[in-house]
Every structure is written in C-alpha cells, then in structure tokens.
C-alpha cells in the first residue's frame, strides 16, 4: 500500500510538473529573450539561458523606451496602467458595495427593477456598447484622460452581484442586533457589513485589478497621446509587422514588466482572495 501511494504521488508530481513546464516555458522564453541583444533574438539562435544584457535592456525600456514605436519610457506606461487598473478596481468596489447594500437592505419602489437593470448590464460589456460609450466619453472631453480610461469600465454588474449574494448570506439578526444596539443604516454598513466583506472585497479587488490592467480595446480607442498609452498597448505597438525592425528584446522586457503588478497583487492578496472565494462561514 505504501509503495502504491508513492507511485500515485510520483505520477501526480510528474503530471503537475509537465503542466507547470507548459505554462512556464513561454514565460521563461520571454525572460530569456529580454536579456539578450536584438540580433541574438532575431537570428533565431537564442540560447535557452539568460544573456548578459538584462540590466541594459530593462534600464533602457523603463526610462527611455523604444526608439520609434512608443516614444515614451515604459515606466510612464506602467504608471498609466496602474492608475487605470486601481481606479477601476476601487471604483467598482465602491459602487458595487453601495448598490448591493441598497438592493439588499432597503425597501424602495422599483427595487427589483433597479436590480434587474443592473443585472442586464452583464450582457453589455464595453465591447458591445463601444460606440455609444466612446461617443459619450468624447462628448465629455474625456479622451486621453484617466477618467476616460477608467470610468466606462467601472460600470458593470459583476461586483454588485457578488456583494448582493454575500450580503444575503449575512443573517438578518445581525442587522436587528445592530438596530437594537443603536446603529443606524450607515453605522451598520461601516461597522458590520464592511468588516465582514473584507475578504470579498479583496477577491473583487484582485479580479478587477487584473481585469483593468489587461484592458486592450478600450484604451486603444480613447488614448491617442503617447503619454497616455497603457503598457498592454505598448507591447502591441512595439511588435512591428512591416518596414521596421522589431526590437524583440525590448518588447519582451516590456512584457515581463507588464506581468509583474498583477503577480504582486495576487501574491499579496492570495490568502484573503482564496478565503473570499471559498469561505462561507460567517
């Protein structure tokens, strides 16, 4: 039996290792490519170990940028992406906590209608309503601004639904105990609901931050200035298809940099995030 279990463990490890290798190899390749010079990458004989140009490449891409395609250092783009992602994540949490609170705890006329209107926005992501949304943003003179980048992406129902489901699991007695303890609606929200929602908030933050960071289509439309472009767009711009020479080592370095913030967010919030998704105990 012991032998059998060892065999089982071994097989499990082998399969997991293969899985990890499949996922990790392209990342490794990206990293390796970002540490060689342009000609080594281009001629197709790039070794599978890191080269000597790590510092040089990253320094250049972070503070100078590519020579022709993006014209801005990647540090600026990372800042843009970061501001956009964090605004989307925090904005969405703020709006969805409040709207879920209203829908769950208040009895007002057309409450369910309001809920369903919020609900059907699930079927209308930015891609579907892109033209009217663009028109509104441009009429409001928000093109090439952070507001223009973030606000249209804040509006969506996922967060509201998540918090609604969570609030509905909170026993009514807690609200009643708060009432008897003299806590009004706002105090109940602040003292009880928000602390209890922390793990859910963390989970939503992680998801929304990554969602915001990875945005491609919308930033492509609303940003025209180089100084406003986000890092995801920059990667695309760096990979030139015609006429010019793609500086692969710089594009790869940018890709590596683009991966870092989401990775940090996930690692930092991992514990809360997992709790928020699986925990049911109140």
């Amino acid at each position, binding site marked *: 039996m012991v032998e059998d279990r060892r065999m089982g463990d071994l097989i499990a490890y082998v399969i997991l290792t293969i899985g990890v290798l499949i996922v990790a190899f392209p990342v490794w390749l990206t990293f390796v490519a970002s540490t060689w010079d342009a000609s080594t990458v281009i001629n197709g004989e790039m070794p599978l170990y890191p080269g000597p140009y790590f510092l040089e490449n990253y320094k250049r891409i972070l503070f100078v940028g590519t020579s022709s395609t993006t014209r801005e250092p990647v540090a600026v783009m990372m800042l843009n992406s970061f501001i956009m992602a964090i605004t989307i994540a925090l904005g969405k949490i703020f709006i969805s906590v409040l709207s879920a609170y209203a829908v769950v705890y208040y009895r007002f006329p057309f409450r369910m209608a309001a809920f369903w209107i919020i609900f059907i926005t699930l079927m209308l992501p930015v891609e579907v309503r892109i033209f009217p949304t663009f028109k509104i943003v441009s009429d409001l003179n928000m093109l090439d601004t952070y507001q223009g980048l973030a606000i249209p992406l804040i509006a969506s129902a996922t967060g509201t639904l998540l918090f609604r489901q969570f609030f509905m699991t909170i026993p009514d007695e807690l609200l009643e*105990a708060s009432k008897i303890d003299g806590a009004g609606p706002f105090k109940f929200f602040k003292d009880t609901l928000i602390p209890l929602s922390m793990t859910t908030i963390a989970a939503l933050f992680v998801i929304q931050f990554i969602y915001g960071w990875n945005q491609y289509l919308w930033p492509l439309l609303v940003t025209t200035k180089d100084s406003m472009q986000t890092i995801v767009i920059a990667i695309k711009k760096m990979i030139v298809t015609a006429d010019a020479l793609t500086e692969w080592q710089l594009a790869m370095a940018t890709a590596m940099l683009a991966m870092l913030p989401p990775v940090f967010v996930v690692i930092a919030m991992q514990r809360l995030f997992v709790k928020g998704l699986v925990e049911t105990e109140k």
Partner: protein
Amino acid sequence: MAQVTLSNVKKVYAGGVEAVKGVSFDIPDGGFCVLVGPSGCGKSTLLRMVAGLETISHGEVAIGERVVNQVEPADRDIAMVFQNYALYPHMNIYDNMAYGLRNRGTPKDEIDKRVKEAARILAIEPFLERRPRQLSGGQRQRVAMGRAIVRKPQVFLFDEPLSNLDAKLRVQMRVEIKKLQRALGVTAIYVTHDQVEAMTLSDKLVVMNAGQVEQIGLPAEVYRKPASKFVATFIGSPPMNILPGAVDGHGIVALGDAIIEVRDLREDLAVQAPVEVGLRPEDVEIASEGQAGSLPFDVEFIEELGATQLFHGKLAGQPFVMQAATGEVAAQEGRLWITVDPDKVHVFDPKTGARLGKG
C-alpha cells in the same frame, strides 16, 4: 425596570395575513413572561413588535408609561437575545458587549466598568479578547446575555435563546437565565416553543395558538386548569389524553361503557351532549378489579423513562397513555383497572375546544 402593556396588538402583513390577531396582556415590573406556542403561532412576531423590529399594525405597546409604537428599537430601552445569538463575528467579545453602549455615547470608563461587571457575572472574563467563533455555543449564549445586561435595559427580550444548545446545557442556562433575571429584577419576555422552559421560567405564562392567546396565567394554573384542549395538549409531557365521551348527568361523563365523575363541569349541558374528556397521564391511579368507578385499561407496551414508566394502551377503545413511578405498577402488558380523581378530569367542547368548566 418597567411594566409592559400590550393592548389589542395586531400584526397584519401585506396581503392581509393576520399573524397576531389582537393580543392584550400586561407584564408587571420585574415579571418573567413566557410566550409559548407551536411554530407560526405569532409569538416571535409579538416579541419583535415589542422590540420594534416589526411595525405594529394595530393596538399599542407600552413600556412603563410610554407608548413605544413609533419609537426606534434603540430608544425603547430594551435588550434582545437572539436564537442564533447574532454576535458580531468580526468584533471580539469585549467590543460585542460594548458596541451598543458606544453607539449611545456612554463614557469609556463607564462602558469598561459595565462590560467587566457583566463578564464577571456571566463568567466570561477569560474570553473578552476572543472572537465569537472561538467560543462554544454556551459561551456565545453568555456573551449574548452579556450584551443585553450591559445596557441596563427596562426589558429583556429573549427569542428562543436556548434552542441552539444541547439538552444538558439548555437546562443549565435555563436556570442561569432565571437566576440572573431575578437578581437584576428586569422585566423579561421570553419566547419559546419548549413547554418545559415555559413552565419553569415563567411567572406569567401566555399560551398562543394561530395568532391568538389561548390562556394567560401562572404556569401551575395553566397546567392544572387548561382553558382549552389546545393548551391541555400543548402543556405537559407526555401530553394529556383526550377521549371522546358524553355528558351523563350533573358532574358525570360517560367514557364508552364506563362513567366517571367530574368536579369542574358546566351544569347547563344536555345529557348525551358529546364532549372530550382530558386525563393527564400522571393523574391516573391504579384500582383493584371491579372497584366502583374504575376503568379497564389494556396495556399494549411499556416505555422506560428511568424514574417513571409510560404505559401505552387502549382505554374505552381509544389510545391512552399512563405514567407511573417505576415499580409502582407491575410492568406487564394486559388489563389494568384505573380510577381518576374527579378534580383532575378536564372536559372540553369537541367543536370549539373550550373548557366546559364551571366558570
């Protein structure tokens, strides 16, 4: 400390469902009133109306001299203990107890004094820094009580506070609640569906059924002289036996072939009028065969309860249960002869269920 007065209190839900159909009674200052009844009888709704968690559709609730119909729960000077305790899971025990006081702006040192005092009374001092989830059911129950005590309310409201505890702990906490309420002298209203809790805790027992009060009285009174068949079968375990019978003259009813005397029977009833006769399992005495007024009881099986035994069988063709101290009656199946004290026979109207007593 205050008296609580309910005058014709009704609860009508949207859609016209009447959960509470006009209830009036009062609880004297320092009294312990238990509302008991089956689930859905409106007892919790009534309690929640006193607490201010449900609006009062009709009638008045007064605490002390003040009508509180329009007063917010926090301003009614009440404290409530919930069935699932409703402790704030993210706060430690100290904060759980202090929260209500903080909200009303009680000075910090006063809060500290009261919380420590309550913790001492309830023996939960070692847990003040812990979270509710780190405590056992009984300890959480104490914290919930503590949260009520620290507010020094005029009225304690208990909504089935013991039903989440195991049987042993329930008995223990029951005693503690009663002791505590006596010591603090605070008026209490306690909702339960457990008739043992109802009997032991109350000095005013309110039996409810289908939104109405069936009987109000001292527990012993309710037990000895139930006002209706519902009360008779609800209070007491095992429940009272109900047998169909007929009036056979003044103070006499017939049960099948046998006749028994009844002390408390209305005198204006026609002979042959059908009635229902209630006999408590423990109010039955063993007689010798053929003794005057004795009834044949065919025992079919016997349940052991330790101190007592339950004899299940048939009396006058109807299912019947008798309770006797172990050893008092030979525990064997077969025919027994029994008599009943005329003082302990209850007669009810078969249609309305009302007691057909002298008044």
